[in-house]
């Protein structure tokens, strides 16, 4: 994987958010650069949920943050409603961010411990909403109710008086109080117990319907991503390997990396036969000096010469199913017109 190309992008105008050739690099000591995200492209339709899945260090959180220009990407375009956010001035971007909100992994540390819940949820309104305290209170109460928190009980309490799941609900209320179009969820359930995780996932589905949200859901747990997403993009070391509808991706994984992730995902079923190998070859290479060609080749069982010399390009292997691999696990059904990378493979 770890390929480039834009075959998976849909016609312009269909997408609410579209990202092209996004590159995010950070300078580090010794004059090196961490190549966190290396030229990825994807798009999201209005009302769609896109799942971004991959191991730690694959650049999925960086991608989420680059969308709202925190920080701005090194290069590439992030279009929201056809406006390129990377070209906006800081002030114009600040105004635009009301449409793009974010929730984070650790619900407790993302709330200010010294503020009351009512103030926390009202803060976005104090910046952009009605300044009238009474009007704010109505909106805050409505939002707290929507996320399943009783406003009369919670309003004057501080975050430490709530459990992790409740704090995540409060974070969601804060992010939705300005009625954004897009909600970026960065590992919102990975710090929670399974039972609470299910509550939050159900809540996000309900709120998405109620407020017509478009979600970007970033997580490392494949089962969670499948549950909530319409479309899933699998990332590896700053590149996208595979993009497909979520049911299609899990039924017919085309990229060896997707297959590896699926095989590693623990199923609560003792009759599933486990692959018992325990070699440590499964380490992510350094993003400072990523492998040439396909970035996954150092861990890929199918890798050969072409994988190290040539970067695979995105190609269609099924209906709305794209993969960047020289040796995809499913063969192209109706072969698309000669793609140089493909014919050589």
């Amino acid at each position, binding site marked *: 994987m770890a390929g480039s190309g834009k075959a998976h992008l849909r016609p312009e105008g269909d997408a609410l958010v579209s990202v092209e050739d996004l590159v995010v690099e950070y300078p580090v000591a010794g004059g090196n650069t961490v190549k966190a995200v290396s030229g990825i492209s994807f798009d999201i339709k209005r009302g769609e949920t896109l799942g971004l899945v991959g191991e730690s260090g694959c650049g999925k959180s960086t991608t989420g943050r680059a969308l709202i220009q925190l920080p701005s990407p090194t290069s590439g375009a992030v279009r929201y409603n056809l406006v390129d956010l990377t070209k906006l001035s800081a002030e114009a971007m600040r105004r635009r961010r009301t449409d793009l909100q974010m929730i984070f992994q650790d619900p407790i540390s993302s709330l200010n411990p010294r503020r009351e819940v009512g103030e926390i949820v009202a803060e976005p309104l104090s910046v952009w909403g009605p300044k009238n305290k009474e009007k704010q209170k109505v909106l805050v109460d409505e939002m707290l109710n929507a996320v399943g928190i009783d406003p009369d009980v919670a309003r004057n309490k501080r975050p430490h008086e709530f459990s992790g799941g409740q704090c995540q609900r409060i974070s969601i209320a804060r992010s939705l109080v300005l009625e954004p179009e897009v909600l970026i969820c960065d590992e919102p359930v990975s710090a929670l117990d*399974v*039972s609470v995780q299910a509550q939050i996932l159900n809540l996000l589905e309900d709120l998405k319907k109620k407020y017509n949200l478009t979600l970007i859901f970033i997580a490392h747990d494949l089962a969670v991503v499948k549950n909530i997403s319409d479309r899933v993009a699998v990332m590896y070391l700053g590149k996208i390997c595979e993009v497909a509808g979520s049911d299609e991706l899990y039924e017919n994984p085309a990229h060896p990396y997707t297959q590896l992730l699926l095989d590693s995902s623990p199923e609560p079923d003792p009759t599933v036969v486990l692959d018992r190998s325990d070699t440590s070859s499964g380490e992510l290479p350094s993003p400072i000096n990523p492998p040439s060609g396909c970035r996954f080749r150092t861990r890929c069982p199918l890798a050969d010469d072409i994988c190290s010399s040539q970067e695979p390009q995105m190609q269609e292997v099924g209906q709305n199913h794209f993969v960047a691999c020289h040796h995809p696990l499913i063969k192209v059904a109706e072969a698309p017109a000669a793609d140089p990378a493909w014919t050589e493979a």
Partner: protein
Amino acid sequence: MNASVTVNSAEASANTNGASLLQVSDLHTSFSVQAGEVKAVRGVSFSLDQGKTLGVVGESGSGKTVLARSIMRLNLGDNVNTSGSAVFEGKELLASTMSEMQTLWGNEVAMVFQDPMTSLNPLVKVGRQVTEHVRHHLGASKAEAKALAIDLLKEVRIPEPESRLNAYPHELSGGMRQRICIAIALACEPTLLFADEPTTALDVTVQHQILNLLNREQQERHMAMILITHDLGVVAGRTDEIMVMYAGNVVEQAPTAALFADMQHPYTEALLRSIPRTTQRSHTRLAAIAGRPPDLIDPPSGCAFSPRCPYVQPKCREETPPLQATDNSGHKSACWFPVGTPENKEAFEKNLAARLPQTMSVAEGAMVNTEMLQEKVATQEERN
């Protein structure tokens, strides 16, 4: 450590006759805090044979970590009260002095912790950390210890072990650090290994490797292992027996295959149902468990799960169900209306008629999913 420990000596002596490696009976642990007494473990009994793996499963706050630490005598502080009995190789651990425990720790019983970063000393090179206790317990020389360390790192599949001995923990990835922690735990060839959420902080691919590593070591060394986790997916297929804990009690205990094939406790059922699976269609409505785990300072009377249980009946709120065997396969559960029985079905229908919120949400969840499924089938048929 000034923790108060009360040992039930009659039971302790009775247990020494058993052949089990570890025999725990009626273990209670509580912490005195300003607000009252937090009863974290409330009467847990189990036994573990040499070479077997026991999975302990439950949500945060169910008492699984406190249970392990009580057996290991690692709960420090003067506000800890432990009572009951934990007999390891014929020796009552709860009656042992701290210096007796020191000869056991690392040597006979060892533990792998959740967070591999904080359980290693950031200022000490990995090589010394792996063999510190080997030199202490076995009196090995520096050269012997180094050779052993290299062997251990090879065994836990760390590439280039010679050069890694001189690395500091921060120079290694999370998975590598957990491999080091496992090497430390295995160094003195313990007969019992506690693994407390060993993979919760790791990626799925690394989690898979670490669990495989633990399994292989456990089998090769014929070591007993207690694997503590909140994820039923981690213990399925990797343990001989599973113990499900809720609010400090064991609610169900069974051989792994039997537990998954025939869940009896509503909590186990709810826990399994709330896990999203890759085999489910996307957007399947998850069956979340309503409510929250109970307050352990003042636990509810009767069954602790009753406030959240979709099958709850008046009896459940009054009488605590005992953990009892339901057949002769060793499957035990603590429920008045076990899942799969006619009584359970009747209780569910009664609650449905009474529109009990948690019962309604289970029923609605099932309905939404059937509707979704039907819709999908319908659209597929249309396409065809």
